[in-house]
């Protein structure tokens, strides 16, 4: 095929022409084989410039185009569009940067000119080996995957679902509702938690645009914003995995409690009648607040800040739910003595101090303490502590309820691996920016909501879920087109020997293994063209479009000759 | 009568002078020849651009480390050089190159070929302990006398195609009593004539002594008969083949060095030739046992089928075989048989099409009956 390469040198009026003798460059380049025309122009990126280029391409029947101008970051797309308008495949074009990488950084004009000549020669050498490539366009998928069926996931689902947007709500247990299902009431307003969560679940179940997948876990996530390929597996292991595609993901996997066995001084799991807050909630919900021997307690101590020192942060909700527990007790067992042992009180919200005063007024003790220890004392529990003056003290109670720190769930590591989002030092999912963007993650299209991101109460969770929904609603508009990478990897079927080295280095999960043919196959839609596989393949069976061996080799050869 | 150019100098020195002249006058940009590449005197093909480096060149050395036809194919595969290059090839190397040209694996553009009537080469192993160097004088003495030296590659002692048909320049070494005094180069093509047109070199006219060459041919034919009858005794059916190729380790070195084997990925290395577990199962059922890896005879017979028509009997395959299988003699025999069926000599004429891919309506009618 006869090549006609057109080379256009931009004066970049006068950024480049000031420092580079473009006439000399023109002379040198004109003598290269296959170069049909070399011209200077004042400003190629201007409207006049673009029109000029289009005419030149058409008039000279150019097969390839080289433009010597600024950085590709500035105008590669501009000139690619020019090619398209002139019916020249935009990938048969190479932009030689003689501005940022030459004119702007070389003081001596002679040196700059020599360098510019090399750079343009290299671009011409390379472009000879370019192939036409077709741009791809696929429609983004408006649907959303919500991982976690607690209040965060439920709220996000309800906000997102519509006739144009399906929501897949995946929950690993057999029921929706998460932690709230264990509560009788919510703190502060002391309204029925059961009603709250049952209503929400009812709304989910009657919403035909939300598909609920209980007893399910996310097995695989590959892809990118607008096109994630999801594989769900059932926890019972019986059925086939479920596969579907979504455009965005909300991770709302919630939290669990710090295990007080790690702080043995509180006697958890060693002594009878020492419970965690969640265990107490469950007892209360079943209206069965009893001691191990079946009797009702006459005195209950709430120990706050369990695990706070170990974790290094305040979970922010424990003081408030302790107040709630005090209310539960006062209602069900009015005569019971209630003592709170705390190291700091955290009562921040606009209504919470009022709640605190209400509870305190019902004869509930609050003692600031440190070095708290629980030991057995006949049928009771003796709590030793130091008061705020540092003096040793002790009390005897029937029951102890611990308020352990909030931790990310045990599944967080697995989810992070599967989705590719990062965890912070505490194991919560890392937000993009602590202050300015606590909902997005480093992976575009994956958002976090609820305690999965950090300890928070129900209203804060609702706020975050709605925010995540908002982000998705505004950016993942149904019908939006996404343009996958054109310069993707290609693995030769006849050359691949199936060693899977490329698979181990692909960060995007874009390579799968065909077990029948025993070869690696690239998913062109998901491939980002990073080139790891090409570097790793020992035999060279993998190559990247537009960065083929010959293209790079010839460019280098011309640059160093 | 053919035009010649003459340098009154020992042939081996004269050819160097000739090349130096071409380089200095910028008639060529490079000379391709065997050369001593280090102080130990190891010899390899080299592309020489500096006339001084030519002092180490040994163009007629009786060694073929690699078939140079294959090398020229690599040199010109991605396009000919802009300026001319001149290369010294042995006749079988040239024929190998011609067969490759017929398959689009190179180009003659800007390439001049020097060749010679060839006395044969030694197996490469003999270069390792200095045997060849020790034999140098006796080798050339035999050649000058029109005799066949000892210890050469079997396919060389039995080679009947020692005349380089398509070369631009021919040096007649065999039975050349004037080798020590004079270098005479026959200009065998217009191209060759053009190149030497205004060189400061004596030009004459002469005729190649066909009678002398026919006499030598007879000697070689006698050797060929001997070698063929010996190998025939072993080539009796499958059992014979199993005996000969039994120790083959499947390294495919023969294919790699063969000038005519040009496929980037050989069929017998590709996924098409791999055995699936079910293949092993069925073979075990049939015969109770199967060699692993399998397909040794299949590979050799397959290669014969693919390249037999173009085998130039250079002997590189036998040299490289780590288990000393007489591959070259076998392929020479089979190759010649196939080529005879079509009155074809591999590499003799670049215009002659490869018989196996040329359709002729009237051909082998007797087989149809």
């Amino acid at each position: 095929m006869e090549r006609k390469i057109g080379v256009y040198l931009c004066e970049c009026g006068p950024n480049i022409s000031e420092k580079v003798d473009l006439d000399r460059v023109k002379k040198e380049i004109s003598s290269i084989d296959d170069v049909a025309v070399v011209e200077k122009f004042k400003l190629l990126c201007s409207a006049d410039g673009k029109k000029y280029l289009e005419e030149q391409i058409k008039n000279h029947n150019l097969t390839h185009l080289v433009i010597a101008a600024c950085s590709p970051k500035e105008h590669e797309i501009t000139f690619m569009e020019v090619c398209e308008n002139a019916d020249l495949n935009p990938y048969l074009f190479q932009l030689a940067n003689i501005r940022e990488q030459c004119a702007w950084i070389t003081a001596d004009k002679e040196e700059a000119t020599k360098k510019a000549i090399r750079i343009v020669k290299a671009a011409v050498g390379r472009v000879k080996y370019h192939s036409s490539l077709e741009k791809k366009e696929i429609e983004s998928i408006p649907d959303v995957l919500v991982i976690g069926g607690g209040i965060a996931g439920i709220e996000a689902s309800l906000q997102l679902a519509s006739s144009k947007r399906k929501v897949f709500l995946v929950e690993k247990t057999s029921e929706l509702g998460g932690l709230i299902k264990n509560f009788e009431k919510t703190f502060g307003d002391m309204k029925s938690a059961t009603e709250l969560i049952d209503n929400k679940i009812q709304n989910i179940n009657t919403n035909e645009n939300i598909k609920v997948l209980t007893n399910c876990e996310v097995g695989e996530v590959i892809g990118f914003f607008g096109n994630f390929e999801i594989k769900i597996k059932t926890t019972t292991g019986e059925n086939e995995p479920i596969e579907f595609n979504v455009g965005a993901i909300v991770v709302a996997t919630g939290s669990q409690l710090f295990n007080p066995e790690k702080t043995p001084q509180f006697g958890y799991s060693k002594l009878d009648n020492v419970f965690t807050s969640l265990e107490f909630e469950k007892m209360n919900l079943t209206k069965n607040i009893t001691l191990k021997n079946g009797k009702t307690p006459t005195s209950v101590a709430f120990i706050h800040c369990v695990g706070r020192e170990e974790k290094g942060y305040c979970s922010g909700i424990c003081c408030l739910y302790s107040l709630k527990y005090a209310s539960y007790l006062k209602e069900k067992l009015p005569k019971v003595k209630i003592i709170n042992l705390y190291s700091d009180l955290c009562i921040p919200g606009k209504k919470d101090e009022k709640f605190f005063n209400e509870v305190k007024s019902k004869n509930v003790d609050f003692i600031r303490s440190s070095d708290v220890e629980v030991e057995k004392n006949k049928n009771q529990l003796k709590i030793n502590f130091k008061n705020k003056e540092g003096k040793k003290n002790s009390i005897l109670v029937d029951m102890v309820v611990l308020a352990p720190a909030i931790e990310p769930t045990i599944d967080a590591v697995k989810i992070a691996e599967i989705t590719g989002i990062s965890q912070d030092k505490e194991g919560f999912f890392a937000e993009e920016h602590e202050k300015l963007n606590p909902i997005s993650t480093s992976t575009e299209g994956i958002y976090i909501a609820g305690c999965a991101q950090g300890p928070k109460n129900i209203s804060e969770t609702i706020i975050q879920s709605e925010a995540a929904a908002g982000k998705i609603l505004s950016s993942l508009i149904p019908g939006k087109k996404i343009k996958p990478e054109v310069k993707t990897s290609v693995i030769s079927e006849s050359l691949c020997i199936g060693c899977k080295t490329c698979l181990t280095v692909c960060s995007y999960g874009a390579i799968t293994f065909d077990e029948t043919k025993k070869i690696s196959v690239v998913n062109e839609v998901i491939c980002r063209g990073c080139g790891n596989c090409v570097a790793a393949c020992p035999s060279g069976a993998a190559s990247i479009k537009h960065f083929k061996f010959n293209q790079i080799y010839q460019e280098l050869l011309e640059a160093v000759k | 009568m053919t035009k010649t150019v003459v340098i009154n100098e020992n042939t081996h020195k004269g050819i160097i002078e000739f090349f130096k002249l071409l380089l200095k006058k910028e008639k060529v940009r490079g000379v391709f020849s065997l050369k001593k590449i280090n102080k130990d005197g190891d010899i390899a093909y080299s592309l020489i651009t500096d006339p001084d480096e030519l002092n180490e060149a040994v163009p007629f050395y009786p060694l073929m480390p690699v078939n140079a036809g294959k090398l020229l194919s690599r040199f010109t595969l991605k396009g000919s050089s802009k300026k001319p290059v001149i290369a010294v090839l042995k006749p079988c190397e040239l024929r190998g190159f011609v067969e490759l040209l017929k398959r689009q694996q190179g180009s003659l553009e800007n390439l001049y070929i020097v060749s010679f009537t060839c006395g044969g080469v030694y197996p490469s192993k003999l270069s390792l302990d200095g045997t060849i160097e020790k034999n140098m004088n006796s080798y050339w003495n035999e050649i000058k006398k029109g005799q066949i030296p000892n210890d050469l590659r079997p396919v060389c002692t039995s080679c009947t195609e020692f005349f380089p048909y398509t070369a631009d320049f021919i040096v007649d070494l065999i039975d050349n009593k004037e080798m020590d005094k004079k270098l005479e180069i026959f200009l065998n093509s217009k191209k060759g004539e053009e190149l030497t047109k205004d060189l400061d070199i004596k030009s004459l006219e002469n005729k190649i002594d066909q009678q002398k060459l026919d006499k030598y041919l007879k000697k070689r034919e006698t050797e060929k008969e001997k070698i063929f009858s010996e190998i025939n005794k072993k080539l009796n059916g499958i059992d014979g083949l199993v005996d000969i190729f039994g120790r083959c380790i499947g390294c495919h070195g023969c294919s790699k060095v063969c000038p005519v084997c040009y496929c980037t990925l050989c069929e017998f290395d590709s996924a098409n030739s791999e055995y699936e577990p079910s293949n092993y199962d069925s073979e075990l059922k049939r015969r109770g046992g199967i060699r692993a890896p399998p397909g040794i005879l299949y590979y050799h017979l397959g290669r014969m089928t693919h390249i037999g028509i173009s085998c130039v009997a250079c002997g590189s395959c036998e040299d490289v075989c780590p288990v000393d299988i007489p591959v070259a003699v076998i392929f020479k025999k089979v190759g010649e048989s196939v080529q005879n069926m079509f009155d074809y000599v591999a590499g003799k004429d670049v215009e002659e099409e490869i018989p196996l891919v040329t359709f002729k309506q009237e051909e082998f009618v007797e087989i149809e009956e």
Partner: protein
Amino acid sequence: MIENKAAAITIKSSMKNTIIELLEKAINKEIFDAVIIPMETPAKDSFVYVLVKDKNLLKDSNPLPPVMFVQGAKAVSSITRLGEGNLKIAAILRPCEIRAAIELAKVGQTNLDNITLISMDCPGVLPYPDFLSDPKKYKKLFEEAVEKWDNKLMRPVCQICNHSSMVSGDIHFATLGINKDKMYLIPNSSKGKNLIEKLELPLKENIESWQKKVKEISEKRHGKRKKTHKDLKTKIGGIDNFVDTFSNCINCHNCMRVCPVCFCRLCYFDSDKVKHNSEDYLDRAETKGSLRFLPDTSLFHIGRMSHMSLSCVSCGSCEDACPMAIPVAQVFSMIADETQELFNYVSGRDLKEPIPLVAYKEEELRDMEDAHD
């Protein structure tokens, strides 16, 4: 993990016959369906690996042949690369062949699920060219060498091999340090133990004497190995010496083709990427006045090293296959020792150990980073 107890078998006529009888017994009991074992060629000039199902064919086999014609891992790979099939197979291989088979399993080139890997104390193998010069003579010499456990005639890399009794397969036939009329079967995995139990051989022998003898030999070899490598390094170190070492190389690539761990279908150095155009070659020639053709011989060897050095098992097949008698194995084996040591890796030691080159560790080789400070 090697078990401390082994099963003993009496050697009646010869070790070879004892092993064959054992295999026949195992096939009879349907413990496995077929065996990969070396057999002599019909022309009696070499040995080949055969997958045998018919136990009548076993009598022509030889579990410890004098030469390594094809690296056994290649035989295992050709049979299992495309899947494990239905047959249960026992493979009798040298220790380095088993190691290579394990390395290949890490890159999907062998499937060891249905294979029981059986090794034995290895006396080494003769260089193939020597054997071929007079097979009858060398067969006898080999047998004598095995008797005395003397490896002077073996491949250069065998002579300094300190893994000649390395156990990384499923069962090991032990002969060193034990009475000549006995042989131990040492299990190294549950597969191996299973096999021995099914053969109704009680695991009651103490293997201390074998371990002691193996350690003694290994330490002696280790010293010799270090010295040999030191001398070799002086000889080939530096680019000029290295190029000289490979000056006779004709780029036939036999070494790569017979290497068990060079598994690429099309080697990078045979691909289009090393094929350049005439102008490039001429430009290169002009920089020095002449260019060896084809150039880049050393690049092939160094490139091959960088691709496979971490998996090299020092079997020596490359050197036997070189038509120009270049000491390829000696060079590659020496470099492999050093590259593997860098990662505390021994190729083929353990199937679960990933090849360092594709195992990412955030904290690794920090000392290399410091060089740039």
